[in-house]
């Protein structure tokens, strides 16, 4: 990638003089990322509905996360593939499938599948649990680090789908007379784990994390009911630093 020089990284300025959009009576449009007046119902640019924070973000995010935490159990217990050799059915779970790859000397592939099917889903679920809990518990943690962790989980989420794709290709190629390859019941659970964790990360609003920190003592101003600020206020803010 070419030079991507950060424009405004000055950690010194990360102090109390920083104000959030909610505190200043602004709302950031979720769709086009333009700044709007807190009193407006729709974005001035793209006409999308405005919400200062994603509504019911925590509740929905928890619901998807708990679903995926439950589904990960059948995903690992039940067979994900079944090889039919001359009428004898040999079921393989995710783990035994990986061990079989190691046995056959395909270590690099075994490592890739292990990371994509076991490490990533578990890291995602535990990571999201940790992030959501720190929103509720107001734990003294670095919000900066948690935000980075959240973006990482957001980015890596889709890669767990790898094993499911491998199976969908395998069943076509290994459809020979005596030997056939079948998708097991765990594929459904595994697919749902991936989808649910992705949805959980999608509805979670990381700004909730920062709301806890930014307004220590000082109450968040009534979001949405403020339509009074003017150009002068923005001007004053811009001149402050």
């Amino acid at each position, binding site marked *: 990638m070419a*030079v*991507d020089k*950060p*424009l*405004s*990284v000055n950690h010194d*300025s*990360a102090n109390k003089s920083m*104000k*959030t*959009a909610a505190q200043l009576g*602004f709302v*950031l449009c979720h*769709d*086009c*990322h*333009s700044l709007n007046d807190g009193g407006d119902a729709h974005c*001035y*640019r*793209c006409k*999308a509905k405005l919400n200062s924070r994603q509504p019911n973000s925590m509740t929905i995010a928890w619901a998807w996360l708990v679903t995926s935490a439950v589904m990960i159990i059948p995903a690992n217990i039940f067979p994900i593939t079944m090889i039919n050799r001359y009428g004898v059915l040999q079921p393989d779970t995710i783990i035994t499938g990986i061990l079989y*790859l190691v046995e056959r000397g*395909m270590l690099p*592939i075994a490592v890739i*599948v292990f990371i994509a099917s076991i490490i990533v889903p578990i890291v995602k679920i535990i990571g999201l649990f940790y992030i959501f809990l720190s929103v509720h518990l107001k734990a003294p943690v670095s*919000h900066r680090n948690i*935000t*980075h962790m959240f973006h990482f989980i*957001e980015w890596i989420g*889709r890669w767990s*789908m790898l*094993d*499911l*794709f*491998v199976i*969908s*290709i*395998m*069943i*076509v*190629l*290994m*459809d020979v*007379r005596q*030997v056939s390859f*079948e*998708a097991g019941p765990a*594929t*459904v659970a595994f*697919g749902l784990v*991936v989808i649910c964790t992705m949805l959980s990360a999608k509805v979670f609003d*990381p*700004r909730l*994390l*920062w709301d806890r920190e930014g307004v220590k003592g000082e109450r968040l101003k009534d979001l949405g009911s403020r339509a009074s600020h*003017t*150009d002068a206020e*923005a001007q004053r*803010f*811009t001149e402050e630093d």
Partner: protein
Amino acid sequence: MSQISEDQPNNLYRQTLSACPSCDVVMKRHNMTVNQCSICPRCGSKVEYMQDSCPQALKWTVIAALLFYIPANFYPLVSVEIAGTIQSTSVFNGVILLIEQQKAITAAIVLFCSLIVPTFVIATFTIFLVVRNYHRALGVQYYCVRLLVQLRHWSMLDIYLISFLITMFKVMDVGVVQMEIGIYAFVGLTLSVNKLFVTYDRSALWRLISH
């Protein structure tokens, strides 16, 4: 960001300020040049990455994706000869076989991420380009951009391609693998869709909307 032109004077803050989508902190807007990335001073998240996103390149990338689309999805990707039997696979075949094996939900997930979403992405980009070209129907342009921003996480062509390579290594010691025309088209499709998503991200698309 000088494109915002129809502002009333009392909405000056729209040109001078912006907020971080990850932590909500308000910051000044900077005039960014190509390949510059703005990072939030409070949470360290990437706020915007300015890229060379010209409409001409968008047009050619979409045309490339359209050309690759049919052979990539419906032509055989590879064929494998195992014990005298030749099997070939396409994206579509895998889904059909999953349905035959009573795994409808799995089939739906694979179909959604590897075929339906990429189809929607290419179709939406095409509609956006056509409507934009005639400077019409702002509502349609907004809708396309919003849809594309939502779809980007769910298009998994790149993952499918990697899965494909893994499968090839897995079956290599069982049978003889032969590349078919579909795989070249699939690589082309994956590259062009990825190029679309990387270069034409949320902010680039909003800049491209024409009145």
